[in-house]
């Protein structure tokens, strides 16, 4: 009870004795434990030796004779360093082009007045609903026409423009006082110099928020790279993992699958645990991906 009291110590005095919120809190704690179970199983199953047999596979108590065999198997079957590299290339490739496109477009919408501004604004807005994943069929044909089928560039291209990023940047730029820019204008700075030296440095929090959203969502993309990529040496992590779970004639090695899954999700999870606060605030600003 003292822990609960401590948790509610900053609640309004009058509400501190109420029971309902505490029940809700307890329920949430229970559910959070349930939420962890798949991760827990993954960890335990990864380290479980095959000698424990299939009937202990579901046991959440760790094996007393942990083994790295499953990790070794997964490592040998899947080309994880390669998948990891491909995913990294895809994410950084998308992000660096997006960085340019959203900065320029965000600035135009934030600071410039031009004919057809609201029309163009709505044209951008359309992308929020017509998310590229829905347009996989026509986009695949377009990518193929460019000769980019089965290339990482083909995976990246549909995401180079980002309406969400543009709006995020527009908001960030609008918040910057115009006086700063006026001063630079007097010094004869060009438009691009002003963007580069005033707007971009002052909008770093928004950029990093966008970067987190962009990288997380493309790290997890599956259906689109599955369609574009055919060569195994160009598979990203998600596609590589899906091949793991596939089977030809009726057997699956659950420990190996757990180990493979662990390897795929570990990088992002570790990054999250380190930069927790930033991740969470980025996702809150994300609004629409």
């Amino acid at each position, binding site marked *: 009870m003292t822990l609960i009291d401590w948790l509610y110590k900053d609640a309004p005095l009058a509400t501190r004795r109420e029971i*309902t919120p505490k029940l*809700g809190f307890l329920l949430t704690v229970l559910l959070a434990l349930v939420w962890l179970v798949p991760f827990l199983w993954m960890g335990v199953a990864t380290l479980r030796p095959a000698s424990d047999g299939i009937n202990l596979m579901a046991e959440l108590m760790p094996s007393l004779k942990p083994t790295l065999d499953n990790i070794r198997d997964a490592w040998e079957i899947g080309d994880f360093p390669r998948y990891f590299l491909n995913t990294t290339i895809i994410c950084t490739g998308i992000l660096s082009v997006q960085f340019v496109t959203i900065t*320029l477009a965000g600035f135009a919408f934030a600071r410039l007045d031009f004919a057809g501004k609201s029309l163009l604004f709505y044209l951008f807005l359309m992308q929020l609903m017509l998310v590229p994943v829905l347009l996989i069929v*026509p986009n695949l044909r377009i990518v193929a026409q460019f000769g980019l089928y089965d290339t990482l560039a083909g995976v990246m291209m549909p995401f180079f423009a980002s309406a969400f990023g543009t709006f995020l940047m527009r908001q960030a730029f609008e918040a910057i006082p115009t006086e700063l820019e006026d001063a630079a204008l007097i010094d004869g700075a060009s438009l691009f110099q002003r963007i580069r030296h005033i707007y971009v440095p002052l909008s770093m929090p928004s950029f990093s928020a966008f970067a987190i959203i962009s990288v997380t969502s493309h790290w997890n993309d599956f259906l689109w790279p599955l369609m574009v990529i055919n060569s195994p040496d160009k598979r990203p992590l998600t596609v590589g993992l899906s091949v793991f779970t596939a089977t030809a004639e009726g057997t699956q090695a659950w420990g190996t699958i757990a180990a493979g899954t662990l390897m795929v999700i570990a990088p992002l*999870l570790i990054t999250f645990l380190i930069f927790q606060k930033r991740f969470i605030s980025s996702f809150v600003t994300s609004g629409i991906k």
Partner: protein
Amino acid sequence: MSLAEPAALPVAASAPPHLHILKRFATRFKTSLPAYLLLLPSLVFLALFTYGAMGRVLVDALYQRATPKAPLRFVGLDNISAVLADPAFTGAVINNLVYAVGTAIPSIGLALLFALALARTNAVTSALRATLFLPVLIPMVAASALFLFIFLPNVGLLDYYIGQLLPVLPNWLGDSDVALYAIMVITIWKNAGYYMLFFLAGLQSVPEDVMEAAHLDGAGPWARFRHITLPELKPTFLFVTVIAILNAVTQVDHVFVMTKGGPSNATNLVLFYIYQQAVEHYDIGKASAATLLTLAALMGLTALSFRTMANREGGA
């Protein structure tokens, strides 16, 4: 630069009497030019992969081959009617509706519960928030790989633990009545933590002094929630609902990994149907027609989301 110029051409070609209009346009265009150039990189990609793709779908949906080796020919709306007559497609639409409602309501409900319980910030709530947020970060494919074992009959995690309590358990992914709900569990597990964040943000706008005053007036926690918190969270609800529905249409990776739409198309969702038509059957006409229908359905949602966005913009 060259891409921006054609816009000026019709004006330049117009007759001399309208010189002043032309001049005005020219000035307007000239002052707008920097903005156009800044927008150009984005517009090129949007033109290709959003509007261009839309156009492509419209065109592709109108063509079909009569026999495998015959050339493509114009068939008008035949593809659309073929898709609408395909029980696999109508089944996928119904599945998708069930899936959307069945994932949106529980995950939003849970998200709200989590947010209310964890609204205060301290070490314990932060840890709990992070725990509930973990599934958001992992790829759907990875979640599916884990749940493949969780749902395994007899020796899987669910049967191993729950099987000791309940006598008869369904064949989770193999029973056509249950499989869709099993798939929904994954989605709820994965998304509730994401929606929680929006509710957490929304709750910050609930004034604590009003709460306290309400309590002094004798309002219990439930009444306060009903009359103060809920109205305040209305925009958040709308917004999260739109995202949840969008997710229900676009997240189908687990269907691919776990069931391939089976058993008997019980877990086939619209986007997976489109994928099957395009990749497994090489039927671009039908795939495009199905895409078109899905896009049309989402247009309604777009309108809704514009309004939600406008609300948010106004609030910010």
